[in-house]
């Protein structure tokens, strides 16, 4: 974009002006008079975080491949820039053209975490777009949103015109095609939305009416105007044929994940019972070794990156991981490219693997046992055994690592104090494993960091009916955790449970929370995912002002027969499976992963991926 005088003056006063100018290598500039549809892809967080996000890169490439569409990137301006933009009446703009987002046909958000919702409303306002969907007229953009949080988008139902459920690659284009057709035929915004609702994976919230019981729970959700009663998410069944970008925009600024990223598979074979991703992305669909290798190579060639990361929920579960690494090694050495894995599983860690990926940095090895005792790990179906962890630690220490991070959660269902202190006990065992390892790095001391996050129950998990711990309980458990440390080699980190509480409210919220969102927006809330901006006190004032009891959402145990706000959204997973899983959790009974055995969760309805694969035990 051409930097205007007005913008230049603001840039002279902000931190990191490079966030606001575009112009990066591989960013796409088109002639706006020659395109039919303009799409502003908004990431409701900072440039550095948004630019690390793979989904955005895929859709940016996909939309821009079409000659008649121009997709631009928009990020939330940091508070210093926002203040200046407001003072100087500069509207939020796309980084490619510099045009305000109210000039676009579509304004699309990706919803990665609930605490970014306030930024969604704030960005709409900053871009000159009316925030409520019933205030938008024929000349305003269509506001769409996708991403994991659309599995319960109800707290944003009054603001967004269209939610996309599941994979966006096909449905985005279908909706844009329909929009172009409606435009040509002179159809109204309302007619377009009504027609869009007929496309699979499209949820138009304004076409649904929610009735409540007197106690505040939902009585019914009814579709109007011919919209389907339930909306099924979209799945891409053949990832080898699906679109994947050949190039990424390469930022000047140092961003969080500054490297090429290849997606190896979607979904996760495990069904850890707290993990929303493990359920909403079912079934597992893998790419072939050849496709991954080719995509990695293309990306490195177009970006100049010398690191490629194999990104998936649990990459070492890829069925052909060793084959893939061997294939990558056939060219990566010559091209001076390093291969890295972002996440390792305790049971997927081997010397064979670490030999092939030299870049699993010696500085940080991270594992997520999630719970401190075997009983609780069985409850959450995290099938990690202590002896496996110790074996892995022995390999890792022997291979030269001396710093380990372990991730846990507190406040999990059925948790006792013994489970909490089990966390430090496990940390201590890892410290001991270091000193018992004969081949450990000489002359170095071990450092084990244990980090304990506050558990947030999420929709589409077996724990969707569970109450979250109270703030007092969290504090008591954090204190217990801290006081149970007996060695200086062990550090315990935890975060105030304040943000987790608000996250829990919105994660399982209904449409009544739209009033709280709007009130928060009026009060200038933004960047709630950042400690600099978040204030529980202010959120409590908001809830108070709109007459909402947040505990109703976060701390209440639901009954299995209650109508949940997301019941009309169909992610393949059947409620009865989640109920069974919840009951099994109480018995500390585990469920095998999809590769070992199909547990008939319901995702086989998509007729693809791992659900139709032959399992070794079956043949």
């Amino acid at each position, binding site marked *: *974009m051409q*930097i205007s005088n007005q913008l230049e003056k603001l840039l002279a006063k902000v931190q990191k002006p490079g966030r606001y100018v575009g*112009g990066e*290598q591989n960013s796409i500039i088109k002639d706006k008079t020659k395109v039919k549809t303009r799409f502003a892809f908004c990431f409701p967080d900072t440039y550095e975080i948004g630019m690390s996000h793979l989904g955005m890169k895929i859709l940016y490439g996909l939309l821009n491949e079409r000659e008649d569409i121009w997709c631009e990137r928009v990020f939330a301006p940091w508070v210093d820039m926002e203040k200046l933009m407001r003072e100087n009446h500069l509207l939020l703009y796309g980084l490619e053209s510099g045009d305000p987002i109210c000039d676009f046909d579509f304004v699309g958000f990706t919803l990665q975490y609930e605490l970014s919702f306030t930024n969604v409303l704030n960005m709409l306002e900053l871009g000159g777009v009316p925030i409520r969907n019933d205030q938008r007229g024929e000349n305003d953009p269509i506001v769409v949103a996708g991403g994991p949080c659309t599995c319960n988008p109800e707290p944003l139902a009054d603001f967004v015109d269209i939610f996309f459920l599941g994979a966006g690659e096909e449905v985005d284009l279908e909706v844009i095609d329909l929009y172009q057709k409606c435009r040509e035929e002179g159809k109204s915004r309302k007619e377009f939305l009504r027609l869009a609702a007929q496309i699979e994976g499209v949820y138009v919230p304004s076409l649904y009416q929610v009735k409540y019981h007197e106690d505040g729970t939902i009585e019914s959700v009814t579709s109007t105007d011919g919209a389907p009663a339930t909306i099924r998410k979209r799945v891409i069944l053949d990832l080898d044929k699906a679109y994947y970008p050949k190039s990424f925009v390469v930022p*000047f600024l140092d961003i969080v994940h500054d490297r090429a990223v290849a997606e190896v598979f979607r979904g996760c074979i495990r069904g850890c019972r707290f993990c929303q991703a493990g359920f909403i992305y079912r079934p597992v669909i893998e790419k072939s070794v050849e496709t991954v290798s080719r995509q990695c190579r293309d990306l490195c060639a177009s970006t*100049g990156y010398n690191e490629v990361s194999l990104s998936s929920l649990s990459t070492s579960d890829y069925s052909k991981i060793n084959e893939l690494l061997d294939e990558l090694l056939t060219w990566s050495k010559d091209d001076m490219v390093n291969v890295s894995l972002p996440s390792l599983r305790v049971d997927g860690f081997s010397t064979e693997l670490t030999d092939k990926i030299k870049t699993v940095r010696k500085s940080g090895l991270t594992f997520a046992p999630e719970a401190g005792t075997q009983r609780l790990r069985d409850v959450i179906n995290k099938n990690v055994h202590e002896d496996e962890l110790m074996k892995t630690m022995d390999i890792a220490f022997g291979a030269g690592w001396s710093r380990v991070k372990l991730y846990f959660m507190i406040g999990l269902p059925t948790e006792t104090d013994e489970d909490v202190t089990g966390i430090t006990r496990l940390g201590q065992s890892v410290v001991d494993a270091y000193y018992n390892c004969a081949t450990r790095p000489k002359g170095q001391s071990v450092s084990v960091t244990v980090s304990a996050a506050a558990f947030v129950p999420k929709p589409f998990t077996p724990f969707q009916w569970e109450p979250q711990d109270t703030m007092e309980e969290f504090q008591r458990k954090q204190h217990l955790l801290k006081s149970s440390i007996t060695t200086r080699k062990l550090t315990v980190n935890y975060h105030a449970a304040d943000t987790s509480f608000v996250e829990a409210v919105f994660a399982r919220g209904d449409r009544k929370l739209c009033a709280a969102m709007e009130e928060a927006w009026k009060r200038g809330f933004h960047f709630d995912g950042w400690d600099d901006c978040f204030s529980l006190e202010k959120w409590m004032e908001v809830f108070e002002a709109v007459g909402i009891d947040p505990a109703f959402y976060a701390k209440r145990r639901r009954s299995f027969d209650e109508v949940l706000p997301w019941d009309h959204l169909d992610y393949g997973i059947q409620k009865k499976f989640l109920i069974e899983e919840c009951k099994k959790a109480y018995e500390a009974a585990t469920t095998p992963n999809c590769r070992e055995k199909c547990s008939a969760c319901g995702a086989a309805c998509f007729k693809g991926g791992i659900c139709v694969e032959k399992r070794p035990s079956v043949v």
Partner: protein
Amino acid sequence: MKNVRVWFEKKNTARYISHLDLNRCMSRAFQKTKLPLWHTQGFHPHIFLTITMPLSLGMSGLRESMDIRLIEEISNEEIIEKLNGALPLDIRVYDVTEPVMRPSEVAFASYEIDYEPENASAEEAKAKLEELLTREEILVTKHTKKGPKEFDIRPYFQDMQLYIREDGHLTASHRLPISVNGGVNPTLLRDAAARYLDLDLFEHITRTCLYNEKMEIFQ
């Protein structure tokens, strides 16, 4: 092995690329072009490149340069073409030469400064600034590694010529000392204007050329 100096412009959006980021951006561009460049040896080999006197954030540069080391003979045209294909649009390479001077010989830089007075007309601002430059002493606060320090800029700015262009803008061309340890930044005059004259200036600065001690053009 052959050392070459690559000349480029850095404008518009590229003005906001910091020195560290520019290094990375150039390394990536070279990695992409697959030009036969010398890499540093050792545990983390990387492309050897040095940027001469990195520009301050926000300034444009018309004659920027960096030194690289080629391990095979390759034509200048090819380097220029390949690099321009791999660099963002607001960085353009236009020449490749054999280095004549060492980067450490650079002692002066020339700038084109376009002033936009925020609270005065161009004429008023010109008169005020000209008066300021006649004073005995013009102190500004310079932020050094050892903390803020009072610094007299008069010796460096007293002969600066201001003029009003046809389009009504107040401009100046000026040469100032520069060194890896700082030198004298053209923005110091803006600070002095704010301090002594209550004059708010917004400025666009373009670095046009570098020189050695003897005021010979850096080549």
